[in-house]
């Protein structure tokens, strides 16, 4: 069987298109590369959707935590504390079983017990809490002078926030936010190792990597392949975020621009 056929069979295996059965023996390098790469579809899906949705909730959380109104501040503080204070791993487990019990009450929750939605919601809340804290820190360090200048020019309310506060906040938060994004992609590997089942062996990259490692008793091939894919993914994320960073800083003189210092985080 040539490599091209393997790619046709397994390239979309993780979303259920192609050959049903996973290879059982005589594993070739090509199979490992294809299947693990196929699993990356899930990692990218979880990461991208959670990041995009989380961005907005994070902004809301940062504003809430910075608010003078107790009714807004306390919920935001608790939300951030709960999701940052406990392991993501436990959150996944808890969410899975929570949705399982909710499913008994109402069939509305049935899709939440599947990874594509349930895990996504968990990741969404989690990244919102972490980025919310980052944005909150950035919001507090928006230079006083900028805001005074905005007042002097007659900006107020929404317009001041949209034109002055928010862009400055993003600009200050961006390097840390980049790291959060990288980290979120790494965290997506946890999904199928917590309660969420990989239905019909449609799993993510780590799921297939550990499948191969289990079958061959040889971790030295699948995991480095996985690592390679993740390094690639990280490079792409860094490039994209770097472009945004350039845009956010485009009005500043060259020397003042903040460079993104890569600090990939660890487990959460």
């Amino acid at each position, binding site marked *: 069987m040539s490599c091209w056929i393997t790619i046709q069979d397994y390239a979309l295996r993780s979303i259920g298109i192609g050959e049903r059965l996973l290879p059982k023996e005589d594993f070739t390098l090509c199979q490992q590369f294809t299947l693990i790469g196929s699993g990356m579809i899930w990692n990218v899906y979880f990461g991208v959707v959670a990041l995009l949705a989380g961005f907005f909730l994070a902004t809301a959380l940062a504003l809430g935590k910075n608010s003078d109104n107790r009714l807004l501040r306390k919920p935001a503080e608790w939300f951030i504390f709960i999701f940052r204070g406990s*392991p993501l791993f436990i959150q996944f487990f*808890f969410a899975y079983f929570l949705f399982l019990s909710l499913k008994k009450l109402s069939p509305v929750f049935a899709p939440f017990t599947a990874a594509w939605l349930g895990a996504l919601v968990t990741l969404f809340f989690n990244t919102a809490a972490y980025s919310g804290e980052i944005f909150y820190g950035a919001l507090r360090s928006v230079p006083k002078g900028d805001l005074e200048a905005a007042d002097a020019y007659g900006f107020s309310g929404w317009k001041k926030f949209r034109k002055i506060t928010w862009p400055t906040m993003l600009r200050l938060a961006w390097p840390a936010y980049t790291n959060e994004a990288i980290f979120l992609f790494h965290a997506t590997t946890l999904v199928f190792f917590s309660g969420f089942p990989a239905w019909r062996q449609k799993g993510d990259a780590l799921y297939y990597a550990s499948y191969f490692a289990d079958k061959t*008793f040889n971790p030295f091939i699948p995991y480095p392949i*996985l690592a390679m894919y993740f390094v690639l993914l990280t490079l792409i994320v860094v490039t994209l975020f770097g472009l945004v960073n350039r845009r956010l800083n485009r009005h500043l003189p060259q020397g003042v621009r903040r460079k993104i210092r890569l600090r990939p985080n660890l*487990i959460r």
Partner: protein
Amino acid sequence: MSFYTSFGTVLLLLAITAPVALAFGFGGAMAARSRILPVSWLGKAYIAIVRGVPDIAFFLFFVIAFDQAIEWLRHKALCPDWTDPIRQGNDFVVCAEAKMPLSSAAQWVHEVYGFGLAVITFAIVFGAFAANVLFGAMRAVPRAQMETAEAYGMSHRQAFWRILVPQMWVYALPGLSNLWMVLIKATPLLFLLGVEDIVYWARELGGSKTAKFTDYPHGDWRMWYFLALLVFYLLFTKFSEVVLEKLMVRLSHGQATLAGEKQRKAKA
């Protein structure tokens, strides 16, 4: 009963891993700032490689790799006249005497061995992060302090141990406390390494043995186990935050930093 001891397992893991990881980190940081080029490359490579890869992959990879490496070395030493290949297709076969631990060994030996592997894995991963923090902290100590030490005629080694090391902690503590929080949150991953920790027990207690939840008045309890775990971790995080804050105040005492200066003024 073993359910309660599993909480002890987590605490024990933290208690052992933290100092070991710190030692790894210290070694790594010392190597990275070494004046001998290959040594500094080694230190920097250690930091870079471990930080670039999702750690869950590391956890899965290292434990099997370590186990196989140890067994392979023992195999070479103990059974020199074994002619069959070690990798027979998908199997990893060593002679009976080289098994680690011996298949005749008591149950607790197996458990301790598994736990030891977990500690080493955690220490290597977190050591790299600690190395990065300490490396930064060593460079953050004001240059003038080192120059003064040299002016007083201290040798490199003396200046390092007597001036740099005592002063660097205050710079390293924010990073290290961050790391500690992450380490706390990484402990549920123990369950992946096959140690019977709290996640294992939470799954076990609510698991297949009591599959017919309808027979019980309380229904599916797993959700509540994980909620309890969530609260356990939240409390632990909060507690650590308070203690680390106290430690920071102590370490800032007499330092040439903003916090140290504040303390001095408050006293005067």
